[in-house]
């Protein structure tokens, strides 16, 4: 229901209200601090749980991933592609680990599903590219966070 607030004569006369409004804007100009973040110099501080660019955690230079295929299974966007292989010591490892970041919806379910703490989402959010990039394994192995 549309409720029209009752206005007294001064409010309907409008001129007084205009002057009050001018006062409010001038108060904002003089006293209110600016909320602008000057981007390249200042950056917004996001939470530690922010889900940004992916990386694969490595221990002693070897990736934690054992190519168990849980993350491509749980991925709702089906953007993770893993080809498994075997190391000389019979350890399973991903020969190929690709994330099609254009399809990724950054839900973080891969991170939750991973039993080896391997795939992680960092706090990096500047991910724009001039090409349609698929994140290769070498790219993902850069350690981008401390999760």
């Amino acid at each position, binding site marked *: 229901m549309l409720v029209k607030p009752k206005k007294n004569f001064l409010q309907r006369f409008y001129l007084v209200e*205009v002057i009050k409004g001018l006062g409010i804007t001038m108060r904002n100009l003089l006293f209110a601090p600016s909320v602008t973040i000057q981007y390249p110099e200042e950056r917004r501080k996001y939470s530690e749980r922010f889900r940004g660019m992916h990386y694969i955690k490595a221990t002693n230079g070897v990736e934690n991933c054992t190519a168990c295929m849980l993350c491509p299974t749980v991925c709702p966007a089906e953007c993770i592609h893993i080809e498994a292989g075997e190391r000389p010591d019979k350890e399973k490892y991903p020969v190929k680990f690709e994330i099609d970041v254009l399809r990724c919806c950054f839900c973080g379910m891969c991170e939750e599903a991973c039993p080896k703490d391997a795939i992680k989402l960092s706090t990096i959010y500047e991910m724009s590219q001039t090409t349609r990039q698929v994140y290769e394994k070498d790219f993902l192995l850069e350690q981008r966070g401390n999760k």
Partner: protein
Amino acid sequence: MFEPNLYFWLTIAKFAVIMTIILSVAPVMAWVERRGSALLQNRLGPNRIGPFGLFQSICDAIKFMFKEDPVPGHVSKFYYSLAPVVSLVPAFMTFAVIPFASSIEIDGRIFSFQLANLNVGILYIFSIASLGVYGIIMAGWSSNNKYALLGGLRSSSQMISYELSLGLSVIGIVMAFSSVHLNDIVAGQGEAIRQLGPWALPEWLPIPKWGVLIQPIGFIVFLTAIFAETNRLPFDLPEGESEIIAGYHLEYGSMKFSLFMMAEYTNMFVASSLITTLYFGGWHGLHWVLNLVPVEGLAREWTRIVLEMAAFFLKVGFFMWFFVWVRWTLPRFRYDQVMDLGWKVMLPLSLGNIFITALAVYYGWM
């Protein structure tokens, strides 16, 4: 045989200075508007180029000049190209009669600080100012676009409605100073008010006879009408960003668009000078400084002129800022509200003002 004397060169210099001021109003005001609006809204605004972002306007101008200037296929080409010029030229012409300082005697001739000393003053301003709407209507019509046409229509009806109360509100001033000559009006405002209604004020009370003090109703009507005339918020219906995209200049790009912007800011400048001249004492206000500086003779005269110009442009600057300030404070009116205000409030108010002024003049209260 023509021999250029000091008077001749001063006249040339006067033209040059005035043209420079008018041309540089647009870039400076573009910066003021962007920074001002940002600060009013708790933002920063353009601050990267030059000190405080002052050179942003130069970059904008360069961008406007080097941008491609496409002419849409569906427009009426002649009028489409003519419209920006038609809206800009009247804005420039109006300033010609506004006195920005009093006169000085050079080589036995009176040198007045005003481009054209017309005896029809105010009438000239109104006749030229009403030409400005043609540019907007031309732009709206020749663009062959529904939104542009709507913008042109709105501006024509709005301008006509408000020009009525604009003209009528100034009648009060004309009656009070019994002249349409802008120099006489400004000179009249230098005197002190001796009469408050039927009561005489004491001699020692230095209240200047500024238009705003003897014509308060007229001033409010004039101020509102001039906002509508310059198409500034809260009366920017011809542009109406959220309703008709950009209104009359929807189909324009690059330098043609920037000519419309220049016309808007120049109109603002002329409007501010008009408010200053008619209601805020023109170049009066800083004469008391003259007693503080120890100069004599011709130097004293020139100091007086400089002070008068400073007073005038300070007042104009305040009103320019006032235009920006109001723009970012008040929301746009609905169209029927604009028409209601124009015809049902402003017109009766200005007529009533004329009546009261006539009574006051008849009984010698003014």
